[in-house]
């Protein structure tokens, strides 16, 4: 079976051809959708709250992009920042960022947008009493000052190179008067933003109806095209596919590769595969947090694990799509992601040798934790078993596994991280190797090098520092980096959409053919 494994652009050409080749009259009844200008889309996970600051799910970030705007916008095709609610910005010094705001922007409820909204929003989210779900996204902000009605300054605690990235995707601007009145619980039921779509109907976690916002400003997102977007939560992929067949759904995303392959072969829908920034890796307890005598404290054992797993085969047969094997503890396109590091090719004989050298000629038994992609975990289980490492697979929910990891009780686990689509190693390596609760290396050299990179604003200096850190991580095999993920998007042939590598759906870029 042939399955397109290419970059987004090439796939789009293919996708376009496939759609063009499908006879228009061949579908029997009309798709629910184009006729009434309603695009029906499915989420797999239930969204905790639509308030962007009170969830940490990908679905939440997606909704955030449609309903709200950030001060800046990260153009996914050019990889450059463009002014959104701010028209221009400047670094006054390493820790002061000044924004000139866009005039004439109105929230969905008619409230005008100005400096007060920015100051209110940032003050609200940086106030620890408000307990937002991911405080790390705003912890770099010291304070926000209003200079005049359309000028604000953000003061930083220390230089923070990823500031604009977070302002673009993770920090939407809220209407100060409305939010002060209704708070997070009100926002979760009746969200109000400046974004291209306004929510008209909402059943928390289950159903969202978004309508095109007629008064949307001429920002970098562009004017939305489709009138109504209807989002439902359908947890089971098979049900989603059945809904696609019956015409009750126009758009699916995050489709597992096996199903996407089958759907592509049917030539009934447009199937596009795009790379994502998510990477999979094995974390080993090098610091001995689960016990001093734990085998993973030995370098040879960690290297043996890295050599034991046939990542090429897993990528080729299971992960598929545009995924690639990785060697560094980050996604290759991320700023500072050094590629010239020690590599551990598949070599079970060498793995056995290393285990014997470490004092485990007959291998050992360990618990192996994972929270998603059970087939991948099981495939690794068999590879580990082949070199003598008997691993008991323990599948947990993401939150449960994170808790255990923070308590220091996980000797060995299969983790994945999407870096919140931030194209900089601060969003991954610096998060997990700076002696935090989820750091199982607790390595001073890595920590020092990352600290140097995180607080410098000179790109060359940062690169050198990160390179040092990532080389040490690879030499010491603190992680066994595995592969990058990919995402499959499946939509009906009447929908035109170009998926991007940041795994963010942009409803405002979707249109009818």
């Amino acid at each position, binding site marked *: 079976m042939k399955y397109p494994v290419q970059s987004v652009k090439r796939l789009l050409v293919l996708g376009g051809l496939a759609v063009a080749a499908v006879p228009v009259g061949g579908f029997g009844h009309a798709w629910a959708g184009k006729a009434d200008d309603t695009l029906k889309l499915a989420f797999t996970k239930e969204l905790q709250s639509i308030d962007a600051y009170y969830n940490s799910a990908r679905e939440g970030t997606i909704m955030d992009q449609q309903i709200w705007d950030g001060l800046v916008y990260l153009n996914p095709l050019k990889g450059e920042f463009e002014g959104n609610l701010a028209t221009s910005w400047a670094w006054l010094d390493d820790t002061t960022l000044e924004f000139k705001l866009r005039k004439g922007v109105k929230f969905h409820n008619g409230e005008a947008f100005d400096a007060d909204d920015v100051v209110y929003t940032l003050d609200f989210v940086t106030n620890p009493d408000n307990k937002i779900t991911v405080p790390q996204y705003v912890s770099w902000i010291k304070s926000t000052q209003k200079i005049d009605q359309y000028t604000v300054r953000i003061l930083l605690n220390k230089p923070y190179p990823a500031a604009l990235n977070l302002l673009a995707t993770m920090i939407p601007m809220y209407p100060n008067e409305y939010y002060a009145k209704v708070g997070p619980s009100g926002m979760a039921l009746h969200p109000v933003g400046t974004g291209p779509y306004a929510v008209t109907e909402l059943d928390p976690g289950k159903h969202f109806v978004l309508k095109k916002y007629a008064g949307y400003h001429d920002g970098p997102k562009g004017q939305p095209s489709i009138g109504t977007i209807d989002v439902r939560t359908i947890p089971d992929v098979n049900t989603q596919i059945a809904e696609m067949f019956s015409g009750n759904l126009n758009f699916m995303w995050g489709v597992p590769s096996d199903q996407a392959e089958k759907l592509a072969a049917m030539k009934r829908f447009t199937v596009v595969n795009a790379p994502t920034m998510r990477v999979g890796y094995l974390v080993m307890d090098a610091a001995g947090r689960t016990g001093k005598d734990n085998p993973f404290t030995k370098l040879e054992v960690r290297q043996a694990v890295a050599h034991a797993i*046939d990542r090429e085969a*897993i990528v080729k047969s299971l992960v598929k799509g545009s995924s690639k094997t990785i060697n560094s503890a980050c996604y290759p396109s991320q700023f500072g992601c050094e590629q010239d590091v020690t590599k551990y090719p598949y070599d079970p004989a060498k793995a056995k040798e290393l285990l014997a050298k470490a004092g485990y000629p007959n291998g050992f038994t360990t618990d192996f934790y994972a929270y998603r992609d059970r087939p991948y975990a099981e495939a690794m289980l068999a590879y580990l078993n082949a070199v003598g490492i008997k691993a008991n697979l323990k599948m947990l929910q993401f939150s449960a596994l994170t808790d255990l990891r923070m308590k220091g009780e996980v000797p060995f686990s299969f983790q994945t991280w999407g870096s919140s689509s931030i194209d900089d190693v601060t969003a991954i390596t610096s998060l997990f190797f700076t002696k935090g609760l989820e750091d199982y290396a607790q390595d001073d050299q890595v920590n020092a090098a990352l600290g140097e990179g995180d607080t410098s604003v000179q790109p060359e200096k940062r690169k050198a520092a990160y390179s040092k850190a990532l080389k040490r991580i690879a030499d010491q095999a603190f992680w066994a980096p595995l592969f990058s993920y990919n995402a499959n998007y499946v939509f009906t042939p009447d929908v035109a959409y170009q998926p991007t590598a940041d795994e963010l759906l942009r409803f405002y870029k979707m249109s009818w053919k």
Partner: protein
Amino acid sequence: MSTTQTATELPVETYLGQLCRRAFGHRGLMFGIVVLGVVIFAAIFAPLLSAHDPYQQDLLARMKPPFWMEGSDLAHPLGTDFLGRDYLARLLYGARISLFIGIVAASISCVIGTTLGVAAGYFGGRVDLVVTFLVNVRLAMPVVLVSLAVVAILGGSLNMVVGVLGLLLWDRFAVVMRASVMQVRGLEYVNAAKSIGCSTLRIVLSEIMPNIVNNLIVVMTLEMAHAILLEAALSFLGLGVQPPTPSWGLMISEGKQMLLFEPWMIAIPGACLFALVLAINLLGDGLRDITAPENRG
């Protein structure tokens, strides 16, 4: 008088012959015996029936369809699973797991339930009150929910599942045994044994038990089937037998993802599970039919 006494007076062959005649005439029973026989045979001779190792993965030969579908590979007559492991081999080794769980869990339950039930039925009074209370407590707890909770807290494994099910499925044994013992404890031969000074243990074991053992067999088969189904349910939810151990419930769970495009991945282990549970139930029903005193003629 007991059956042993009758046996000395009448030719043994008559009773056995009678049983066999009834058994051969009982379609359900024959079906049960044949299917169960096939499963037991498959479980015992699994390594001879399949050349493949059920744990051997081959990522390049994933999800090969079974022999009746296009694109199949004769090396894997029932196809391969999502990691390229031979489906037939996993099915055969999975039969071992199902039978093991059924037999061991039902045996644990049998010991617990029979002890309680016989004690309650024989002694009556306070003992009966206590046992009835225990049975009520047990009945108030939904088996699936309790086993889910216990396994979720203590972690899933084969032994854990067997243990939990064994400790949960004794209620029917207790209820049936209690009622059966109550029926026979006042009969003449029991009183006779009492009057000549037999010990309680002797009375229970050699006077009462032989007369109610057919009920026990029926409950035993019922609970075996129950345990096998529960194991499949727990494994399906990811809380039972842990991968890579082949278990039919786990195979169904693994096939679920591909339900729409590769329905055989669920259909094959599902059909096996269905057939096994049906066979055990029919066997139990049949045994009751041919051995029940009212049918002895």
